[in-house]
């Protein structure tokens, strides 16, 4: 029983959510193939071929696949599913966009954002913003699973699988990609970063957010995140949002500054290994999940923290 993993990438580089999804896949079957669907993505396929435990890498290329058009990805994947019992897709915004299409076409349930593989048909997934964990068993012949990458360790490099080029399938005649504006950042990717520094509504303005959060993040080599309140207020861009409705992160260290800790924010970061909270309100719910809480105005605490980090040789 072979399983297929669909790689997460930007046509240039492979994202480590792919390696994490491979770990989940290897818990279901020892025959794991990876599909790289993109355009000009040979380097991505070569990187995928190096993941330990991967049997082979399939590379499908077209403009629509490179643009991530959901209908095109579905058309590419569905014909392959005759050879697989399950397909695992990293639960990124891109993966979530096309994965239910594959399930609908195969007439099977999608099991969303699994965090644990119990056996080849049984999985654990968070529901109600992570306030409950549901264990479900699927009776469908084929399984379509999206994987919450932060719940799995990345499979290491060390393999040398063959890369096989396959047909891209039909495009999507009724959907046209116009353009996209991606923010280029020298910082690590939010969902893959070892350290995340997030700011909340207490920042009060976009300028203050940049002045306070970004230098601290840069000093720590961290990605920058934000609470929904900060994003809604326009202090930080949409894709900084950590939470139930934004990104789910689980770094080694999560630093929450001026964030009260609404349920929906906690849902996005409570699996972090260590949590630091800086907030002047001692009763803020964020302190209940923090390993190290510092009750202080961020205006005082962050400069002191910068100094203390410098003194510690960082």
């Amino acid at each position: 029983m072979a399983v297929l993993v669909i790689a997460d990438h930007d046509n240039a580089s492979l994202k480590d959510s792919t390696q994490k999804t491979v770990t989940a896949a290897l818990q279901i079957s020892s025959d794991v193939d990876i599909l790289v669907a993109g355009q000009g993505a040979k380097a991505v396929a070569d990187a995928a071929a190096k993941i330990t435990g991967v049997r082979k890498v399939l590379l499908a290329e077209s403009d629509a696949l490179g643009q991530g058009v959901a209908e095109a990805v579905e058309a590419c994947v569905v014909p392959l599913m005759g050879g697989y019992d399950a397909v695992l897709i990293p639960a990124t915004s891109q993966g979530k966009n096309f994965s239910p299409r594959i399930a609908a076409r195969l007439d099977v349930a999608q099991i969303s954002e699994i965090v644990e593989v119990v056996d080849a048909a049984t999985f654990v997934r968070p529901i109600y913003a992570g306030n409950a964990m549901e264990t479900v068993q699927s009776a469908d012949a084929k399984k379509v699973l999206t994987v919450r990458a932060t719940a799995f360790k990345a499979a290491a490099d060390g393999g040398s699988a063959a890369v096989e080029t396959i047909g891209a399938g039909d495009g999507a005649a009724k959907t046209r990609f116009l353009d996209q504006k991606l923010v280029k950042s020298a910082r690590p990717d939010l969902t893959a970063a070892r350290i995340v520094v997030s700011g909340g509504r207490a920042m009060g303005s976009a300028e203050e957010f940049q002045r306070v959060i970004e230098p601290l993040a840069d000093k720590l080599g961290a990605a920058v995140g934000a609470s929904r309140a900060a994003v809604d207020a326009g202090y930080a861009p949409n894709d900084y949002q950590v939470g139930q409705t934004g990104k789910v992160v689980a770094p080694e260290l999560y630093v929450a500054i001026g964030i009260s800790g609404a349920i929906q924010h906690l849902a996005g970061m409570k699996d972090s290994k260590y949590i630091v909270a800086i907030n002047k309100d001692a009763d803020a719910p964020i302190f209940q999940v923090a390993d190290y809480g510092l009750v202080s105005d961020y205006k005082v605490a962050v400069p002191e923290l910068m100094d203390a980090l410098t003194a510690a040789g960082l």
Partner: protein
Amino acid sequence: MKVLVPVKRVIDYNVKARVKSDQSGVDLANVKMSMNPFCEIAVEEAVRMKEKGVVSEIVAVSIGPIQAQETLRTALAMGADRAILLQTDQDLEPLAVAKALAAVANEEKPDLIVMGKQAIDGDNNATGQMLSTLLGWPQATFASAIEVSGGKVKVTREVDGGLQNLELDLPAVITADLRLNEPRYASLPNIMKAKKKPLDIKEAASLGVDLAPRLKVLKVAEPAKRSGGAKVENAAELVAKLKTEAGIF
């Protein structure tokens, strides 16, 4: 142009879900229920399109228990013109909901379906994409802006790292993200008026689609608790602990 807006009745956004002690599910007895927040955004968007003159009729549809009428009345009070309840007490998975909605779409023939990107109970984020697939209509998920003109719709989507623009032929399925708009509160006169708007109730079973669940829920458990709550006195102590206890640096 006619818009179909599917809406779901879920636990209220501000209520913390509690797991039943027998681990059979989440306790919804005597819990405040409301319209799923993403569905509210979808209704609001349809109403704004109608206010702009782009849309002539808004049909809200829900599938679920008889109490889902209240959710549909909310949609009517926000500005939908009429509502359809597909009544069933069965637990429904996204695939079943998508099949039921596809049957409604084939009957109602809307030009556009706008719906929430996910429901805050199951957190599946699947129904819109499945519906688009079953109907063979183009899809745009996670919309933060929608602009209809000349038989086409331009959708700005929230993607990892930024925003993407797609153009879709109509009819199409669009799922709403958080920043598409801020839903209005229904005014009291509109709530009163909504009571007189048409709301058809049909048995979901009468659609003739397979609504049976594909997944068996073995248990629903509390998530692992974090043992937080420890405090530090100052930034220097924080850095020292991150270094020695946590081994971060």
